[in-house]
């Protein structure tokens, strides 16, 4: 089979798996698991095969016309574009999706809605693969929207809980809010360049011979950026992502690591020449990226829910990728996308295990329990690896990709990149370094709070802290008061931590296996900076000395400061009855309260959007009730009154009827006579 056919099968297989999964889910439950796992695995194998065959060479393209649009030049094509970016991202998507599917077989073992869940995950994967491989903007949009609706369903998997319902609605609405300008941007771009084919668009834009120039590059770039911000959770449309934690943990892993959020970055990467055509758009992108990465990192430092920490971390890391794009280096961006996909999937999946073991999402409660590292050693070790990668400590994968981003920013800042504004470079560089500090800080905080046992009380300190902590744990398992939006799976979907053996909680083997499988790329994917430039644009991804030293330095500083603060606050907490060992409190100071609330962006949206909309709805309701209904009721009452009046004539007395009949006859006769004689007599 040719590479093109293989590539076409990659999105098709999960889609077929999803269709059959939905069809057979109820009738043949035995097929559900194979149907969920096997197509995704096969698609992954094929994606790897495609990547190997493509081998970083020139892009392979194939297209067949899908639908005419009335303009022959603008026909919609079912087109594939296999370049280095596409095949590698597809491999990432496939690997993460396969891991998620495998993990889900264990994680959602007891869930009655597992068949539809697995089918939706497959469909989600298929849509993402379609986005990755597609060479046509409209087909890309189709995959984009299918992802949106799948995320709606998956985030709302536990629809019994109001948190999940509102989170799924929020995710849907916010991403759709970005999709509208995105659609307009696509149409504007296509109408200006005369094609929906991305390769054609890019060729016309980049080739000096074609002479095509966008008339409104800034406008188009900003319109596209709005859609990307919605999908990739960039400020100010990021607020759906932390709430989306209400979904099952594997879904979070899928959304955060490989699909959904990555698609936005990937699309900007594909259309980068459109953005570089406008310096203003790049600066806007850089500002958005800078604000998002630092803000999200600060928020991550203040969150209590493990999954929300990870969610804000994802937002922050996505902003890194966006920053790389803002300085015109999509190689670095996609490199970070790949490594981040690996270690963030690992983080989420291990967090899922951790949450099962602890029975709560709350870091505060975990910090009081302690001993989790012993109970879930696999999760402990893999999560440690992933956190090190996240904190960009060499030689883990995150280090190399983040260095690639920072190096690109440095190049841009010093004006070594043609057409990239230096301001964007400086912005990304400074924000990236600050965020590196914060990233290390919240990674260390997460690790310390989750796994380190509470500090022993100093000599002579009163109070049986251990007993109190355990009592607190038991209380917190019911309703953890610290957690603003408790992910409901502890109550609903927690697969029973079965296999009680040697006093240890054993997670299903498939879950831990997946963790270790994902740990490998988190460890070694960083070395990809050596071969990857051949697959990408050919630009070097090797870390430069200056930024490496700087970034690693600030990371270490952040980590150490956090550790020191933790020692301090944990000691204090142990000494005092209501102390909190959270170092974030001390580090952020007065900022903590705002950061914990996501800098009140939701409150702002509530005030700016939700309340006016509700007011308008009430106005419309009032108008409907008071004005429109009046006419409707008036019509009804009028007919009723008329009926009542007529009903009075129905006395049931024959003589009354006859009298009325005769009276009428008489009147008619008189009229007839008068008419006849009136003519003659007048």
């Amino acid at each position, binding site marked *: 089979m040719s590479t093109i056919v293989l590539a076409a099968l990659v999105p098709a297989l999960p889609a077929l798996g999803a269709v059959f999964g939905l069809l057979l889910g109820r009738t043949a439950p035995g097929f559900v698991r194979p149907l969920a796992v096997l197509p995704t695995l096969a698609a992954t194998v094929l994606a790897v095969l495609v990547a190997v065959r493509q081998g970083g060479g020139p892009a392979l393209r194939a297209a067949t016309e899908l639908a005419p649009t009335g303009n022959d030049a603008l026909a919609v094509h079912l087109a594939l574009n296999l370049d280095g970016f596409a095949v590698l991202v597809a491999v990432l998507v496939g690997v993460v999706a396969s891991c998620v599917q495998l993990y889900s077989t264990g994680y959602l073992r007891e869930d009655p809605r597992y068949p539809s869940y697995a089918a939706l995950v497959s469909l989600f994967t298929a849509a993402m693969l379609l986005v990755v491989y597609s060479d046509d903007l409209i087909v890309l949009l189709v995959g984009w929207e299918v992802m949106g609706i799948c995320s709606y369903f998956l985030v709302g998997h536990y629809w019994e809980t109001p948190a999940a319902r509102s989170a799924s609605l929020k995710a849907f609405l916010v991403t759709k809010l970005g999709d509208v300008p995105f659609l307009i941007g696509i149409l504007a771009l296509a109408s200006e360049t005369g094609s929906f084919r991305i390769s054609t668009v890019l060729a016309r834009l980049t080739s000096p011979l074609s002479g095509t120039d966008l008339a409104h590059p800034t406008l188009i770039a900003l319109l596209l950026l709005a859609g990307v911000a919605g999908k990739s959770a960039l400020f100010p449309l990021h607020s759906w992502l932390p709430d989306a934690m209400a979904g099952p943990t594997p879904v979070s892993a899928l959304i955060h690591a490989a699909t959904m959020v990555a698609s936005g970055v990937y699309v900007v990467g594909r259309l980068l020449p459109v953005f570089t055509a406008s310096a203003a758009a790049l600066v806007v992108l850089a500002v958005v990226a800078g604000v998002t990465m630092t803000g999200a990192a600060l928020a991550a430092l203040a969150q209590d829910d493990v999954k929300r920490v990870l969610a804000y971390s994802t937002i922050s890391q996505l902003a890194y990728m966006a920053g790389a794009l803002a300085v015109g280096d999509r190689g670095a961006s996609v490199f970070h996308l790949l490594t981040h996909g690996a270690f963030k999937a690992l983080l989420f999946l291990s967090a899922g295990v951790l949450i099962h073991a602890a029975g709560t999402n709350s870091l505060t409660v975990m910090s009081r329990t302690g001993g989790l590292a012993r109970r879930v050693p696999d999760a402990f070790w893999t999560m440690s690896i992933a956190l090190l990668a996240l904190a960009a400590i060499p030689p883990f994968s995150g280090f190399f990709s983040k260095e690639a981003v920072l190096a690109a920013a440095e190049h841009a800042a010093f004006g070594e990149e043609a057409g990239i504004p230096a301001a964007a470079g400086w912005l990304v560089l400074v924000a990236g370094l600050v965020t590196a500090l914060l990233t290390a800080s919240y990674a260390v905080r997460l690790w310390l709070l989750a796994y380190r046992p509470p500090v022993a009380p100093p000599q002579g300190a009163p109070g049986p802290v251990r007993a109190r902590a355990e009592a607190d744990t038991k209380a917190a398992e019911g309703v953890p008061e610290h957690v603003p939006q408790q992910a409901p799976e502890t109550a609903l979907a927690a697969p029973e931590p079965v296999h009680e053996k040697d006093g240890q909680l054993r997670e299903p083997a498939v879950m831990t296996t997946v963790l270790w499988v994902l740990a490998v790329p988190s460890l070694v994917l960083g070395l990809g900076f050596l071969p990857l430039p051949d697959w990408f644009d050919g630009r070097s991804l090797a870390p430069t000395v200056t930024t490496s030293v700087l970034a690693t330095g600030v990371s270490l500083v952040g980590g150490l400061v956090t550790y020191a603060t933790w020692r301090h606050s944990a000691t204090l907490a142990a000494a005092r009855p209501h102390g909190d060992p959270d170092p974030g409190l001390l580090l952020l100071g007065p900022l903590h309260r705002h950061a914990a609330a996501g800098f009140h962006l939701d409150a702002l949206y509530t005030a700016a959007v939700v309340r006016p909309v509700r007011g308008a709805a009430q106005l419309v309701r009032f108008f409907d009730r008071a004005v429109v209904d009046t006419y409707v009721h008036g019509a009804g009452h009028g007919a009723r009154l008329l009926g009542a009046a007529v009903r009075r004539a129905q006395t049931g007395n024959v*003589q*009354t009827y006859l*009298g009325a009949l*005769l*009276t009428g006859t*008489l009147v008619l*006769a*008189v009229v007839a*006579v008068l008419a006849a004689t009136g003519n003659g007599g007048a």
Partner: protein
Amino acid sequence: MTLAAGHPGFLSPTGVEVVFLLVGLVTLGAAIVTVTTRQLVHAALWLVAALGGVAVEYLLLTAEFIAWVQVLIYVGSVVVLLLFGLMLTRAPIGRSPDADATRRWPALVVALAAAGTLVTVVVDAFRSTWVEVDGAVAGASKVTGVALFRHWVLPFEALSVLLLAALVGAIVLSRRSGDGAGRTGGRRADERGGKGRS
């Protein structure tokens, strides 16, 4: 057909006319009493007077056969039937205060209006028409019989069938149904009424 030109006006009535008028007044008076009296049996008896008056008018109009038929059928049988009807429905003997409904005033208005309209029209139309009643008898038995059995045989036979049907119908209606034989009317009426209301 003769016009009134060569005939006496309304102010100089002939003898027949005088008699006709007098009998007509009696008839009309009897009819009015029939529809206004509060004694039901008296109403039937006054009806006899009214119908008899009409028979006399027929005679005055030289329709002898019709006059005797009127006496035979109306006075002889219909009124008897009505009297039977009154008895069978246990009509009270003597004055019954509720013989007339409260709607008698609207009914009076309707009747007077109808009378006014019709009298106006009739008088206006036939003011000067003269009927010759002094010559040949118009309604002798022979003449009527010849006309009836020569020209009106088919309707006559159809009418006989109608009478038969009416006879059968009256019998069927009057017969008590088997299951209701032992019951008095009152109780059954109560049940029916209740059923009908619900």
